């Protein structure tokens, strides 16, 4: 049952990779069509995620699991915003646009704003200079934290220059090596998927 999908993976992947090198206009037209199709399929993948969310909370509501009133909040908000968005659009002046500015945007940004407190607490409790490596990391972090903000040049006029050097030399070297490593890994994984060696994305047989 997986041979067909594996063949589809091979054909679509090999086609797109090969078409990268073929400038012929008919070949590029095929390439464009494949990309337009992928755009639509990707949209349905995101829709699938929302459906899965619905299922999970609907199940909790059905069996009256712990916290079920909150699941009701999730389901009601999902339905209301979807229906309103499809009916009236998502433009800035539309009902969904206003809900976005009032609900989505503040909630998302505040959820992440909590991280400021967490990182301060975690840095105090866990950031320890227990080894040479950890000490090097700690000193660099402190120099960077102070040197890159407005107070840095006031504490020492050399701090901005030191932070620039740290970013332009050791940071650049390490991040370049990581980028090359990630690139090699990504290419090898992509090849394994196209050639059917890696099949985990198809799920259990």
């Amino acid at each position, binding site marked *: 049952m997986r041979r067909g999908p594996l063949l589809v993976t091979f054909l679509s992947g090999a086609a797109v990779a090969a078409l*990268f090198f073929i400038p012929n206009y008919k070949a*590029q037209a095929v*390439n*464009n069509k494949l*990309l*337009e199709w*992928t*755009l639509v399929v*990707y*949209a349905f993948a*995101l829709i699938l995620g929302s459906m899965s969310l619905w299922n999970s909370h609907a199940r909790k509501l059905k069996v009256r699991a712990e916290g079920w009133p909150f699941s009701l909040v999730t389901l009601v908000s999902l339905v209301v915003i979807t229906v309103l968005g499809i009916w009236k659009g*998502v*433009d*800035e002046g539309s009902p969904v*646009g206003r809900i*976005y*500015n009032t609900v*989505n*945007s*503040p*909630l*998302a*940004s505040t*959820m*992440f*704003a*909590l991280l*400021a*407190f*967490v*990182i*301060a*607490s975690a*840095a*105090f*409790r*866990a*950031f*320890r*200079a227990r080894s040479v490596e950890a000490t090097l990391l*700690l000193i660099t*972090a*402190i120099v960077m*934290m*102070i040197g890159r*903000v*407005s*107070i840095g*040049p*006031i504490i020492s006029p050399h701090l*901005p220059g030191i932070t*620039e050097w740290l*970013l*332009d030399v050791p*940071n*650049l070297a390490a*991040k*370049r090596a*990581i*980028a090359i490593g990630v690139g090699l890994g990504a290419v090898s994984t992509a090849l394994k998927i196209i050639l059917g060696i890696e099949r985990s994305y198809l799920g259990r047989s």
Partner: protein
Amino acid sequence: MTWARKVLSIDRRYIFLLVAAGVVLPLLRPLNLPITVTPRVQAAYDAIDALPPGSKVLLSMDYEPDIMAELFPMSVAVLRHCFKKHLQVIAMTLYPAGTGLGQQALHTAAKAEGAVLNKDYAWLGYKSGFQVVMIGIGENLRGMYPVDFYGTPLDSIPVTRGVNSYRQMAMVINLSGSSATDYWIQFAQGRFHAPLVVGCTAVMATDYYPYLSSKQILGLVGGMKGAAEYERLIGILGDARRGMDAQSLVHVIVALLVILGNLALFVSKRAGEDLGGRPAGSMTR
């Protein structure tokens, strides 16, 4: 109980209060600390500033509300710079929840600089697919975006008339808080050789220095600090500049907390105590 043990046992909620105070107090009583512009932000500004009036620029605002604090002020500053220079901006987003923010940034900047929709900028809105969209724009823009966000065909919009790929665009500016930037480098710059300027969150900024060195990107605006520097360059006082005093104070607080924690550990080790240090763990008690 030794002072080291007392320090390390402090309730985390006092640390939260200290951080909160570090943010609130400088906002209420600004310190007006000077903002120095770093070379990478200057390079980004110079690259955009060098474009002749009337040049078309693709601006992709690939972020959602969770990181809008860093990238929204950056978007507004970059857009205001583009409008001041009379560049024609074709704006888009690759994140569904970035649609509202992209619109807001455009409206805010357009209102401040007197820019007009369709004449000075076009808003294409959202498309799913990341790399697929980037390659698609390079091959056939209208295949990806048959109409703009408001349903207007691209041929009816002066800004997008005659534009069907990166070849007709002077520059691509990507403001992103995710791997979207990597893909813009791979496809828009790598495959189609579009000049690329990048704005990103501070978390990601250190990752893009190799691309600056190899000239794959022309400039880098990193985080709220980068946005503040850009605001300074274009001569506006936005949210990013206003937040820099608070940023400085909290950084000093965190640095002092780290030093204090390590001092306590050092003192306890000398005294023969094993305090270990509690792991950060979850926020619930």
